[in-house]
């Protein structure tokens, strides 16, 4: 048995596998299939200060090797989450990451403050949701706005702070450096890539929101490239995600520079993906004679 444990910003994870925000709800539904304790952590559904109804349906469209979504941050609001959802989660023996989003800097700060006094282990700041007009992406696409929101939240958030980065930028490494400079404890990437599909019969976009975020294996090479670039640009831990569907993908992402990984869309193809990734990764490490998973992080040998 290889040692799969990792440490991100002072928080110990039993394995580097985290379910991605928006794909795992608040855990209840997948717990009917397996115990949540099998997971290194859960990045919970993006939560805002007030309840949000989200966008009209259809909110999903299939694509070659992936999907588009335009959920639009539907969530019950932070107070409801803390009162009704978190108590259920707190004894599940897995790291709980609150993913927070908002309309304004003040929104983010208030949510971060509320979460600071809870049983949440870490906060993931979503400044990269492409599906709501002011749902974060506006903050995530310039160094100045990304830096200033991280600075503001950092001063009011008592939990380790992960900043989730958007790939819809010219140079993701600049944004990563900016958030690191303002006190981010870790970065996670990539959020979805903005995309679109059109029904040629009706000439209508498949998504009612017209555009949505692309995820799934289709985005994996983009994610690997961005994680590799960001790893070289920052000193804080990097959490890699974007299209991971197999243990081989997870190993590749870690070799690119990810200290831990997140699994999202692949859950919809196979609900057991996180468990299969953990098993496969463990078997491969044993076969390679590698005792600790962290030994592979960033070990790609570029030409």
């Amino acid at each position, binding site marked *: 048995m290889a040692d799969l444990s990792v440490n991100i910003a002072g928080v110990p994870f039993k394995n580097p596998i985290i379910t991605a925000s*928006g794909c795992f709800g608040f855990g209840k539904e997948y717990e009917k299939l397996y115990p949540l304790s099998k997971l290194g952590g859960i990045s919970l559904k993006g939560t805002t200060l007030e309840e949000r109804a*989200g966008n009209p349906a259809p909110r999903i469209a299939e694509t070659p090797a992936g*999907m588009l979504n335009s959920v639009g941050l539907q969530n019950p609001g932070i107070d409801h989450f803390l009162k009704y959802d978190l108590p259920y989660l707190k004894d599940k023996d897995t790291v709980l990451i609150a993913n927070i989003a908002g309309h304004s800097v003040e929104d983010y700060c208030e949510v971060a403050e509320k979460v600071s006094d809870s049983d949440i282990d870490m906060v993931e700041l979503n400044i990269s949701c492409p599906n709501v007009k002011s749902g974060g992406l506006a903050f995530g696409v310039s160094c100045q706005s990304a830096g200033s929101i991280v600075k503001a939240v950092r001063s009011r958030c008592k939990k380790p702070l992960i900043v989730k980065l958007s790939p819809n930028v010219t140079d993701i490494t600049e944004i990563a450096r900016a958030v690191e400079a303002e006190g981010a404890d870790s970065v996670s990437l990539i959020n979805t890539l903005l995309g679109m599909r059109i029904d040629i019969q009706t000439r209508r976009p498949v998504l009612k929101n017209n555009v949505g975020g692309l995820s799934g294996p289709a985005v994996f090479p983009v994610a690997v490239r961005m994680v590799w670039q960001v790893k070289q640009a920052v000193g804080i831990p990097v959490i890699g995600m974007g299209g991971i569907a197999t243990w081989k993908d997870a190993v590749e992402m870690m070799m690119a520079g990810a200290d831990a990984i997140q699994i999202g869309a692949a*859950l919809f193809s196979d609900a057991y993906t996180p468990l299969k990734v953990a098993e496969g990764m463990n078997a491969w490490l044993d076969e390679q004679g590698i005792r600790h998973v962290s030994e592979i992080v960033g070990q790609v040998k570029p030409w």
Partner: protein
Amino acid sequence: MSYQQGLYPIIEKTAIAKNTYSFTILAQEIAEMAKPGQFVHVKCKGYFLRRPISICEIDRKKGTLRIVFEIRGEGTEALSHLNVGDVVDMLAPLGNGFDILEPDKKAVVIGGGIGVPPMLEVAKQYQNPMAILGFRSASAVILEQDFKQYGRAAVSTDDGSYGRRGFVSDILNDYLKEETPDIIYACGPAPMLKVLKQIAKEHGVRLQVSLEERMGCGIGACLVCACRTKKDGKESMSHVCKDGPVFEAEEVQF
């Protein structure tokens, strides 16, 4: 609600109409848990997302499920190429299912097109059910004889090539002149369900509808299959996979 994901063998396959297939699948544990109106979430080889398909029949003794699906796109086409002996990757049974009353109650089941299959297992729960089945044309008619095994069945087609020319709502309106059912169940295109909601309301009869929406996870985690509902005066976004697919018609905001 309990469900599981696994590989289950097809033990019977029939083409029951043009581009419409019936699979009987051996899945003991799912058959034990399944209720009328629930669905299975099926992986189609080569396609990323699962396809939700309603359960047509449940046989607990044999440990089998029957699903009937129409080829709608490339995913369901790939599914249609599976044969007896092949396995289906399913996450099931999902959703809430219909509320079933005592067997001697008077129930009407209404299906439109590929909304017909889930009504069969509902009809089987009643001693003398009335089925109203609507199709585009004669070539699309499915399961009429199956419904007649368990009760009455009336068929309409849009073009009049089989049964009564017109819509299921025409047959229902005539039926309601003679009889008052305890409950109506329906599955089909949204415009059909919207009309039925109005008719049921006028007659003061309870109507449960099964909705369809593009889905992701199928279990209520990803929140993509949203539909607008209104309960106790409060409007909200419900999810077809977990809160449904069956809703009280009066709650659905079509």
